[in-house]
């Protein structure tokens, strides 16, 4: 049996001193796992001027926060971040380590895992413990769900997207310990992030949009894609996509919904010219109403939505846009 005091870890991430939503969500899930294991939740946070943020992590459920607070840690630096976390993990021997699958997390997680020579699972949509208290990562694949485990090596590591778990309600009365980390005075010198440049995204952000219109391979070409984008604009919706649409270059990776893309939970989801593959559909978490437009009546997408339109999207979408406009005009005149 493993020692009971091996903690559950979350590697938190901040950008411009803001702790990301995914970090809080993972702390929420870590609490559940820790309760079942009879252990505590420890969080690592690296950045600059982030002492206040450590308290937020405690309010969210951390029992202990390891805080690396130094100008050199202000933004993600792969070499030094890896070094600090690997060293600490070798001392503290966490049972489980959870990391958000942001761009930085997706790079950092395999560096830490390889440094600790342990296993890592990707694209998890659920995390639970089996009867032997081994972590099971559920991963959508091949029209079903894979369970992946790391039976022997520790920690058991997983990366999880924003929105898979819900954020815990902060409890300001919770207490916890903040442990300052020593930051090496001499930074390893083979790689440096010189600056982080943020570009304002265009249009409605996917994650918080009340309406999402997603297009897939069925758009056929740029012109067909343009129609789907017009539908999104008409509804003031965020535009989402499947992987083939990104691969074709019709849209950017930022719009991809699904296990390796974004998680959305809109009131209304309209999927156009897409087949309802699980890897896409797991990205739609708790939509109130779902609609699919597909020219193949037998498509499995129709098993996963509330309303189905069997039609060629390139013919149907322009008509739908007109009907929506008519409906909107009627609203204004009444």
């Amino acid at each position, binding site marked *: 049996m493993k020692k009971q005091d091996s903690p559950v870890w979350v590697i938190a991430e901040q950008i411009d001193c803001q702790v990301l939503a995914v970090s809080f969500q993972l702390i929420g899930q870590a609490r559940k796992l820790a309760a079942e294991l009879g252990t505590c939740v420890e969080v690592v946070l690296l950045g600059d001027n982030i002492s206040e943020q450590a308290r937020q992590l405690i309010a969210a459920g951390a029992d202990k926060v390891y805080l690396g607070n130094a100008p050199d840690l202000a933004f993600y630096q792969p070499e030094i971040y890896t070094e600090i976390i690997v060293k600490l993990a070798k001392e503290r021997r966490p049972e489980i380590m959870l990391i958000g699958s942001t*761009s930085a997390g997706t*790079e950092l997680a395999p560096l830490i895992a390889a440094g600790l020579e342990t296993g890592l699972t990707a694209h998890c949509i659920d995390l639970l413990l089996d009867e032997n208290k081994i972590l099971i990562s559920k991963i959508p694949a091949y029209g079903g769900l894979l369970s992946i485990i790391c039976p022997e090596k520790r920690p058991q590591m997983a990366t999880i997207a924003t929105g898979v778990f819900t954020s815990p309600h902060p409890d300001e009365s919770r207490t916890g310990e903040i442990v300052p980390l020593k930051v090496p005075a001499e930074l390893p010198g083979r790689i440096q992030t010189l600056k982080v440049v943020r570009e304002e995204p265009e249009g409605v952000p996917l994650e918080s949009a009340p*309406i999402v219109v997603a297009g897939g391979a069925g758009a056929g070409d740029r012109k067909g894609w343009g129609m789907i984008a017009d539908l999104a604009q008409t509804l003031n919706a965020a535009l989402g996509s499947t992987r083939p649409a990104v691969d074709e270059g019709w849209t950017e990776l930022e719009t991809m919904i699904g296990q390796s893309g974004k998680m959305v939970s809109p009131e209304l989801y309209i999927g156009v010219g897409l087949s309802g593959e699980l890897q896409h559909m797991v990205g739609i978490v708790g939509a109130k109403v779902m609609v699919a437009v597909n020219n193949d009546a037998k498509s499995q997408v129709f098993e996963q939505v509330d309303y189905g339109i069997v039609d060629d999207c390139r013919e149907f979408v322009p008509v739908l846009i007109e009907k929506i406009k008519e409906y909107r005009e009627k609203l204004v005149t009444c």
Partner: protein
Amino acid sequence: MLKIVVCVKAVPDPKEAHKIKIDPVTKTLMRSDVPLVLNLMDKNAMEAALQLKEQLDAHITVLSMGPPPAGNVVKECLALGADHGYLLTDQAFGGADAYATAYTLAQGIEKIGEYDVVLCGMASSDGSTEWVGPQIATVLKIPVVTRVKELVEYGGQWWQVKAGMENGYRLVRVKLPAVLTVSRELNTPRTLSFSGIIKARKKEITAWGINQLGLPEESVGQKGSPTIVSDLDSLTSRRTVEIISGTREEKAEQLVNKLADAGVI
């Protein structure tokens, strides 16, 4: 001379990959004969290597780990303009997770010898973990930059690259030797030329197994993998659909009415 190693993966053709399904009864994978093709983003890695070769004095080695048919994707890269190809293939390499894959590839790279830049795709189209590049770097003890979308400064000992991140990028300065994983935005891959295919006939592919790499069996393939697949579940549908019928206009109008009634538009 700049020594470039490009890692390429043979993946089930994404256009047919949906044919691979889980048998709900036996809980095993039903593999239809889906052909193996060159992973999409590895074409961007190859293109980056070819452009570097056009601008600098460079030598391109292609490396893949996979079953014998994966040799075809190595051949494809030779036809695109790579100088030499290696295929790591052995029964013992089967069932590797990301770590065991990276470990084996890193051993191959060490055996190939000198290298300045190791190029990988950002992600494969099947496992899609994005971990092989970073973990190769860890085993080789060199730095890595992932999701590279632009080479800003290159040619010397220190390179500057843009690494894609949510709504923007990181400008990263990195010292060679290094691993770079490249995103689709980096370039537009060229297509195969007839003369390239002819020239590739003369280029050789070296195949190495576990003995040539001198590795213990516990360090590769399924045995060398910290993670294992413990279960497979098929899924059942979650919603009951109402198919809206009629003429195109009627369908659109009915749909708008239903969405309005539900209060979502």
